[in-house]
């Protein structure tokens, strides 16, 4: 199968959906001729024109307000927040409007919009352009939260997100945009709420999200060389969460590491740990559940410090050994 990059997969998914459904359109800052801050939308204005590729002023409040309004009238907007950090300016529209409308109007109104959010650190963009704030969004009933870790998942999950009648927060990782994987040419959907076992194993379960899925797989490779059989679970969507897949794996291995890039304190991994502790999988635990998360500090600009602020492959490797008392 052909290989394309994560950013190409996102673009392809949007383009195919726009060809299929006239109501789908994109809006955001510099997404036209410039192709967006990360080039994800490059060339789309040539195919779809400025009507459906709408370049907006630098105001996340305006972009999100526009999107919520047009979604309620029947359009399916995909808005790009240039850096996911800026979503906080759009918070009122997303939290108080988009997430609530369907409930408050008894289902008579719906808000089928997708908010695309390039997130995460590693590219030297410093504290205001490198955060992973997805846990904020998972706290709001009415929002779905998606976090694909490779190109294949990104394309299928985005298609499902666009078709969903609820607001979906779609977290793309900046460091994954150039990572290629096998992606079918035709349009396909990956249903929201279905986790993926990225690697099967029996000794330890790593539940990882976003970029950490890739690092967990690298660590698993190294651990395999030492005879340790690691299972890597990628929830893919945080809301809705595939609890069954997670708990099944916990029951199988009895040892769990939860790895996420967001600040460890109150990151989404904390929710996963709570889920396990409350469930009947508790009885299968054979070691305390461990977490790896980002440092409790703004992401530093210095590249070495930036690296130190979030879990690296070696950290995951070490934690797995700890889980096995090795």
């Amino acid at each position, binding site marked *: 199968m052909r290989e394309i990059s994560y950013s190409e997969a996102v673009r392809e998914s949007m383009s195919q959906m726009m060809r299929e459904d006239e109501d789908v359109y994109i809006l955001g800052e510099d997404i036209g001729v410039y192709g967006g801050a990360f080039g994800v939308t490059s060339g789309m204005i040539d195919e779809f024109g400025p009507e459906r590729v709408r370049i907006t002023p630098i105001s996340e409040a305006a972009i999100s307000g526009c999107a919520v309004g047009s979604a309620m009238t029947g359009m399916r907007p995909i808005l790009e927040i240039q850096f996911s950090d800026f979503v906080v300016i759009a918070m009122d529209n997303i939290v108080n409007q988009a997430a609530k409308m369907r409930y408050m109007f008894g289902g008579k109104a719906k808000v089928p919009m997708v908010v695309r959010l390039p997130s995460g650190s590693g590219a030297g963009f410093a504290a205001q352009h490198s955060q992973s704030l997805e846990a904020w969004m998972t706290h709001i009933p009415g929002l779905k939260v998606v976090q694909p870790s490779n190109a294949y998942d990104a394309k299928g999950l985005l298609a499902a997100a666009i078709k969903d009648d609820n607001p979906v927060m779609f977290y793309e990782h900046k460091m994954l945009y150039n990572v290629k994987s096998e992606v079918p040419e035709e349009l396909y959907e990956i249903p929201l709420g279905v986790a993926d076992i990225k690697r099967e194993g029996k000794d330890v379960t790593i539940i990882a999200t976003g970029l950490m899925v890739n690092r967990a797989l690298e660590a698993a490779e190294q651990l395999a060389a030492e005879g340790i059989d690691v299972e890597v679970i990628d929830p893919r969507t945080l809301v809705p969460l595939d609890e069954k897949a997670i708990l099944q794996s916990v029951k199988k291995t*009895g040892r769990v590491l939860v790895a996420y890039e967001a600040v460890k304190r109150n990151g989404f991994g904390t929710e996963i740990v709570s889920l396990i502790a409350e469930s009947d999988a*508790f*009885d*299968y*635990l*054979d*070691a305390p559940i461990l977490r790896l998360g980002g440092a409790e500090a703004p992401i530093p600009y210095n590249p070495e410090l930036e690296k130190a602020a979030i879990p690296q492959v070696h950290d995951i490797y070490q934690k797995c050994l700890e889980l096995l*008392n090795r």
Partner: protein
Amino acid sequence: MATEVLMPKLGATMEEGIIVSWMANEGDLIEEGDPIAEIQTDKIVLEVEAETTGYLLKTLFEPGTTVNVHEVIAYMGDENEPVEISSTAVSEAPAPQVVLENDAKPRKTPAANKLAKENKISLSSIQGTGPNNRIQRKDVEDYLKQQSSSITPLAKKMAEDLHVSPNEITGTGHNGKITKQDVLASTQVPTIVKEETQSNVTKTPLKGMRKVIAERMAESYYTAPHVTLSVEINMSECVALRKQLIPIIEKETGHRLSYNDLMIKAVAHTLSKNKSLNISLQKDEIYQYEDVNVGFAVALDEGLVVPVIKNADKIGLSGIVNSSKQLVSNIKSGKLHPEYFEQGTFTISNLGMYAVDTFNPIINQPQSAILGVGRIVEKPVVKHGEIAIDPTMQLSLSFDHRIIDGAPAAQFLTDLKDYLENPMKMLV
């Protein structure tokens, strides 16, 4: 508030005790110092005495139950006082170290807990290998595997010795484990049947001191490969020395110097020069003792005890005489304090008062050697090419061949012979 009566810790190595019997009933008034229960340790049976005067409110265990040290076994207090049984065994344990031991619940993972519950086994019998001794699933699995092998190492060895297949033996131990009793029972079925047909047979249950002795003897005999070396001693010098010393020591201590005291002295002296016999094999470790603590077997109506004279190599003959007479008199009057029997590193079994010349003694485990002493008898001996009549005595040294080789044991016996035939050398 009701007072807790605890299983006493009667020695450094005591981990648990068996309640042999209750010596008072619930509701009885007990004076301070009165016995409440009979407790059997791995060495002896003795009584737990009341520390205060009060009513025995509640006994918590049936006779025959094994209880960990410092666990509550009964409550005392005012007449008809209600008793609140605390679930943690210890509240006001005497030593702080003990509180730690008993207070700390075993650390265990949920997975270990679940597996243990499913298999109806107690986690208290499992040693955790995780961090902070946490019991993990693997520890339980290993335990189960060991259980499923379902025969104790001792029973296995006995079964092999007796040419019995473990498959033909029904286990009566924990989870149907085959114990040495089961092996013995399986071989003795015909004998038992025969006995039952006889009319004038008295049957006594094996219990108390007799049971302890039975178990310890069998265990020693079946686990430690015994080798016994014998030597004849010319006792003429010793006999003469004793005659000289009797009045001197009697004046100082008020006791008569016995051959047994001389043997203790000579053995202690020889042992201090041959420390390679002053050792013990416990589990997988060899203990080398610096102190020479010599025990000597004392026969009682109900069995046998071995009081110990500590540092016998460092005290003079009158010291040995004093200690041994004091110990024997206390024991014969029924005072069996556990500290009398602890920390022995070597045992002397003296049958010299009987018409016994020589015998093969069984090692008093966990010690590694024992000396059997026969009677002193006048015999013709060859001295400087001529036949003379001298008092002679046979010694036999049994040693644990797992950790003591023949040569050091032979050296010990040679040195001992030298000291007994030339007792002046002990003064040097």
